[in-house]
């Protein structure tokens, strides 16, 4: 046993702010509970069966109490709701130039792929002080990527990408857990997040060997799966060119417009007939069941790499 741990490790500024909110709620809770418990014990003692305390005030009107404590709790609760919601919105606004790492969950492990092509299992290395955006998918059941030290978690629902972002500040090693029950070895589906100084991180990346970048691997797959046969000039079938598409709005044949993000690219590979770009025939075959989540990540990274230059587009 390792003593009495009272508080989880805090690895980011966001985590400290959540701790502050938690502390504020704790104060509200302690005050309320303290008041109730004090009154319970005080009354229980003062007005016990055998005591001779004065009981002449029983005819007082009750509605004034009722209205005031109803109003007070309502006000406090609404204030808390609004305050906490403002934190939550932040989780939904990832910064534009975050380092993007693909994470795939499967029974029972987490696999990560870095932009440089480095891969790791049940480990995640990230640089300190830099925004990191995780793009996550699941191969089988619902998992949940949970890093207590960062106070964040996100369920990963199979069949779609879920994203989550953070900026860790303090170098160190922190737990990663799977928080959504996923079967036999659910308890072992975890690992370690290693936050490193940027310099160490660069060294770590180099030490992982000279793989191709994720995008370069994706380009290879782009040819291997025959995508280039149609999506590049000179193809036999008229298909949209993909240069510069990523991150920009795409008009669809049903009149609506979507932004070509990771989700759109992924869905277009697996279920191409669902959202056909305007002016094209729905002739692309589905690649569902043929492309693994790992390869999908590479293809998405490739499409992203031939998108508009990062600085200008977003």
């Amino acid at each position, binding site marked *: 046993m*390792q003593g009495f741990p009272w508080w989880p490790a805090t690895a980011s500024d966001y985590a400290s702010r959540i701790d502050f*909110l938690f502390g504020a*709620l704790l104060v509200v809770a302690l005050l309320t509970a303290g008041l109730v418990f004090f009154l319970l014990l005080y009354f229980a003692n003062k007005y016990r069966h055998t005591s001779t*305390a004065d009981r002449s005030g029983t005819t007082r009107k009750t509605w004034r109490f009722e209205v005031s404590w109803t109003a007070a709790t309502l006000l406090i609760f609404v204030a808390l709701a609004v305050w906490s919601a403002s934190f939550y919105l932040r989780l939904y606004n990832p910064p534009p130039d975050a380092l993007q790492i693909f994470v795939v969950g499967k029974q029972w492990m987490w696999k990560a792929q870095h932009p440089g092509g480095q891969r790791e299992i049940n480990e995640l290395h990230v640089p300190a002080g830099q925004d990191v955006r995780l793009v996550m998918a699941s191969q089988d*059941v619902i998992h949940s990527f949970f890093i207590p030290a960062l106070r964040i978690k996100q369920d990963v629902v199979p069949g779609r990408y879920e994203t989550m972002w953070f900026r860790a500040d303090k170098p160190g090693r922190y737990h990663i857990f799977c928080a959504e029950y996923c079967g036999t070895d659910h308890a072992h589906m975890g690992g370690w997040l290693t936050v490193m100084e940027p310099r160490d991180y660069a060294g770590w990346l180099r030490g992982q060997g000279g793989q191709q970048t994720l995008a370069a691997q994706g380009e290879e797959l782009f040819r291997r799966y025959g995508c280039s046969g149609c999506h590049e000039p000179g193809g036999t079938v008229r298909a949209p060119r993909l240069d510069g598409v990523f991150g920009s709005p795409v008009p669809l044949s049903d009149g609506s417009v979507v932004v070509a993000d990771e989700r759109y690219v992924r869905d277009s590979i697996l279920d191409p007939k669902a959202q056909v770009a305007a002016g094209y025939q729905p002739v692309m075959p589905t690649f569902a069941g043929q492309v693994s989540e790992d390869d999908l990540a590479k293809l998405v990274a490739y499409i992203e790499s031939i998108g508009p230059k990062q600085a200008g587009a977003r």
Partner: protein
Amino acid sequence: MHAPHRSSYLNAEIGLRSWLLTTDHKRIALLYFAGITFFFAIGGLAATLIRLELITPQGDLGSPDFYNRLFTMHGVIMVWFFLIPSIPATMGNFVIPLMIGARDLAFPRLNLLSWYLYIAGGLITVAALLLGGIDTGWTFYEPYSTFYATGYIILAVFGIFVAGFSSILTGLNFIVTVHKLRAPGMTWYRLPVFVWSTYATSLILVLATPVLAMTLLMLLAERVLHVGIFSPQLGGDPLLFQHMFWFYSHPAVYIMILPSMGVISEVVPVFAGKRLFGYEFVVWCSIAIAAIGFLVWGHHMFVAGQALYASLAFSFLSYLVAVPSAIKVFNWTATLHEGWIRFDAPMLYAFGFIGLFTIGGLTGLFLAALPIDVHVTDTYFVVAHFHYIMVGGAVMGYFAGLHYWWPKITGRCYPEYWARFAAILAFFGFNLTFFPQFILGYLGMPRRYQSYPPEFQIWHVLSSAGASILAVGYALPLFYLFWSILKGARAPANPWNATGLEWSVSSPPPAENFAVTPAVVRPPYQYDQGKPCMQADHG
């Protein structure tokens, strides 16, 4: 067993057949007591094994699959076969007709059918659990439960489906009874609060349970036929399952806690010898909880991939539903003011309830706060929170009611000393079991883990130690209550100086409840200098 001297529902007829085919609400309540005690024991056994396993960080009591089956069994049995029917089907069945001055529920045969459905569903599910168990967790999340889980899921889900109809029929019966069978003079504002709470519970039973039935049917269809409904592998959306599941299962929490609140609202004024403070507010808060309780289920899905706007709305509504609960706590506390407070066992359980429910409710505020929920959902913080509500709240209320009405039900008094001891033991055992789990949860310990990082161990050890105390606290009543049936002193008609109609008939009540339909002349909980003023002048 010595037969009571007077003629009562217990000896009006004899023989097993007269019990198994009875339509007397009091006898059916006792049948439910038997069933519920049986299922509580099974669920409790599973809980014991879980706490035993968690003493050490490694998984050393059986395989991970064994552990997964254990907590599924614990959850399924406790939720559907203990907590949901616990108070309404036992005490509700027994005292509601007595409280409103009726001779029985509106549909006595339906009441019996509902017991048989409950037992049939329970036995089917227990059979599935014994044949090899299921490892889905009580939530049956898709797509795990359709294509990845092993075991007798079809059988277990079918058992829950059958038991659901028992819930619906019970709720329906109570609604009609409360509306149509009240004695003359028993106006709505003269109803004891327990009747109001059970009525509010019945609304949820009738309106939410069918959604569960349909959801489970679709789950079965998907697992049996391999055709997509919720499973993403077959084109469906697993979040739709979660929506439909929680549309039932969140209000189900109020099915568990509302009757308990009703019991406490009975016990507190009686043992404070004083009118319930803010009666109208307490009863309307019950209705408000039942209604708003339907609007908050999405707070189970804040990290599940639900749309941002939906999460914001559900968070806000979750704060709203906390308001009526808080008002009730304030009113119970205020009732004590200037009372003549006695500390008999039911009152000790009631004190325990208020304390634990307050903690459970306040931690609910943390979970309704979106960013805190992101951190602590699916951790032990949630486990601790809902055990404070369902065990600290609902089960404490169950024991409060059991001790309060025991003399009425059996005509016997239990040993007061042992009962107080058990109440205090359960309170401390409970806190030692579940308070450390709040800390564990904020530290990041996920739920449903058989093994865990060693730094969490100390809190698990404390929790398991508390669980052993809690187990004794829950087992003791079994012994002294059984003893009281054999050797206990005969109970007078109104041992607690209560005011309700059920206390104006003999203990145990006669088979027909009231020889003459009582005429109700005043609201409940009226005391004059601590002396009860009965609701009806002659019974």
